[in-house]
């Protein structure tokens, strides 16, 4: 139950030069096809194992939504096949088929029937749906008086009222208020723990990295790459930067992780190290220990303005802290080829125990979108361990001063 198997999937739309061309093709089939095919998706093959969560990413027009439509069965593939086991729920567009003149409750019945539930099943699920949507008395008002957020709450509550074997979600979660976003995301997580297979399309890095086991990157209608979410996310970010005419390199680190490097290459990181108070390069750091991040940049071509930035990320690629010399108002000007610049960033490692990585970026302004000289993910990997402090949870070291008054 819950398996998705996509084989050699392709989708092409037929483009007819004129309106009459289709008619000619239908009526005079012996004259051959009058259309040309526009391929939206080509040669997509992947498997999703039961209980696995897979994120689908790609820029607009990469074919994500088309792929979801093919998988959920609303659109038919031109080539290849999709095979699925178990009950499927697809949240492609929430609130579809809601009728404004009927009450929320009546629309719940309608939407439920549309996804194949019977009236009795919906009646049984109604208390859950009511509780989850949390719109109170509005449920018995016509939907036309709802705000879009309220409609979306009801729609989500119905669509996920019963745990499916496969859940397909298309960016639907970006609507609604933060509270409900969290709530709906929590429901997805909960279903996942219970064994639901998840296929999620999102531009939200955090969503992909915190829920998915694997990510698939679509580019120009083809499956560009699949792998660990943080790797794919790094590659994706680099790919966006690459559209600014820079190069993109992938290399395997000693620890087996894929490192993504991109940029035009006028300046590169020649050396990077994390040093302790004694000045020794370390890979293991104690919580709260004073350290210095040392980055040496080699300049290969004249640069009018140079900014160095770094970002500390956790195991899942979530940013912990990032800054750059533009934000710190220390940009350098007029660098010449052959020069070397060494930066030292001193700080206390106020992070919780865990594995972290540092990404570096050499740019000209605050972001890497104008001039990206070099962007290097996983430039350095280090581990924080808790050697001297009492155990604490989380990835930030926010040690409190505690005062207790007992009377």
């Amino acid at each position, binding site marked *: 139950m819950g398996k998705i198997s996509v084989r050699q999937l392709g989708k092409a*739309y*037929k483009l007819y030069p004129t*309106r009459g061309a*289709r*008619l000619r093709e239908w009526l005079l089939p012996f004259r051959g096809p009058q259309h040309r095919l526009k391929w939206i998706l080509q040669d997509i093959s992947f498997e999703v194992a039961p209980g696995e969560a897979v994120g689908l990413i790609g820029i607009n027009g990469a074919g994500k939504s088309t792929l979801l*439509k093919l998988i*959920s*069965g*609303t*659109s*038919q593939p031109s080539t290849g096949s999709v095979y699925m086991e178990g009950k*499927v729920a*697809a949240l*492609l*567009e929430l609130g*579809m*088929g809601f*009728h404004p*003149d*009927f009450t929320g409750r*009546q629309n719940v*019945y*309608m939407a439920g*029937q*549309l*996804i*194949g*539930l*019977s*009236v009795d099943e919906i009646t049984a699920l109604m208390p859950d749906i009511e509780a989850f949507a949390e719109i109170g008395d509005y449920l018995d008002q016509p939907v036309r008086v709802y705000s879009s957020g309220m409609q979306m709450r009801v729609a989500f509550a119905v669509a996920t009222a019963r745990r499916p074997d496969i859940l397909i979600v298309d960016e639907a979660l970006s609507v609604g208020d933060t509270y409900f976003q969290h709530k709906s995301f929590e429901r997805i997580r909960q279903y996942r723990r219970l064994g639901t297979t998840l296929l999620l399309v999102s531009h939200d890095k955090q969503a992909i990295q915190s829920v998915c086991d694997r990510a698939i990157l679509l580019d120009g209608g083809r499956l560009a790459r699949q792998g660990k979410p943080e790797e794919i996310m790094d590659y994706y970010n680099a790919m966006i930067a690459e559209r600014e005419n820079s190069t993109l390199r992938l290399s395997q680190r000693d620890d087996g992780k894929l490192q993504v490097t991109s940029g035009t290459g006028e300046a590169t990181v020649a050396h990077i190290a994390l040093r302790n108070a004694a000045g020794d390069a370390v890979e293991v750091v104690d919580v709260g220990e004073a350290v210095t991040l040392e980055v040496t940049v080699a300049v290969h071509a004249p640069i009018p303005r140079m900014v160095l930035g770094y970002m500390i990320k956790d195991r899942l690629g979530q940013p912990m802290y990032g800054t750059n010399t533009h934000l710190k108002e220390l940009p350098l000007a007029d660098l010449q080829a052959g020069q070397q610049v060494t930066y030292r960033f001193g700080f206390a490692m106020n992070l919780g125990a865990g594995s972290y990585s540092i990404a570096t970026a050499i740019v000209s302004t605050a972001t890497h979108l104008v001039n990206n000289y070099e962007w290097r993910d996983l430039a350095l990997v280090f581990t924080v361990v808790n050697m001297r402090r009492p155990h604490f949870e989380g990835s930030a070291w926010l040690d409190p001063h505690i005062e207790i008054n007992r009377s």
Partner: protein
Amino acid sequence: MMSVAMLRGLWRYRGFVLGSVQREFQSKYRNTMLGAAWTVLSPLAMILVYTLIFSQVMKSRLPGDTSEYGYSIYLCAGILTWGLFAEITSRAQNMFLEQSNLLKKISFPRICLPVIVVLNALLNFGIIFGLFTVFLLVSGQFPGAVFVLLLPVLLLQVLLAIGLGMVLGVLNVFFRDVGQFYQIFIQFWFWLTPIVYPASILPAPVRGMLDWNPMAAVIQSYQAILVSGQAPHWQHLLPAALLALLLCALGMHLFRRRAGEMVDEL
């Protein structure tokens, strides 16, 4: 014609089909005060207008009929059943376009849509025709046992309508001219069918052309049953029956072959 998978899908979604019929009926009159009465009022108004104009003003009487209600019954027999035919075909030709959002976003058995159209039309027809039957009983014009022969004729007419509707519905997605054309076509068709006037007033050469109109035989069957209390001439209905089967087969063929392409086009 219909595959087992289609029927099974339809059965699984029976709740959706019945719910849609109910909702469509309710939504039509939701914000009205007279509610379902409007279903009756508009055909009633039409019958009144035709009766007044044709039977009173133009003094046209059915040849050989002297009863006070004769023409009204003749008119109702044709207009009410033609209304069913017109409703099914016009709704069916737009059903895919109207439901394009649903078709694009939600995966459900598409065959539900024509079924919903037919059931909706039958519901509206049932109400108005039920009232008409009550009128026949009250006014003592009820034709008797021959009344049940309406059922096979109705079945034939519904098949003819939905077969044509499916063909138009699929074609209309790809060639929107079809819908516009049919709206004009059906007006001519109405007046080329002996509904308002009896076929006998037509000159002989024109009357021969009625054989080419499958709806003429169907409507004349209703008129035979309801006005004269006679069983229809079944052999006259044969071309219409063949056409109905042919259209249903063509409709299903087009529907199955083009269902996928249709979603891309919406």
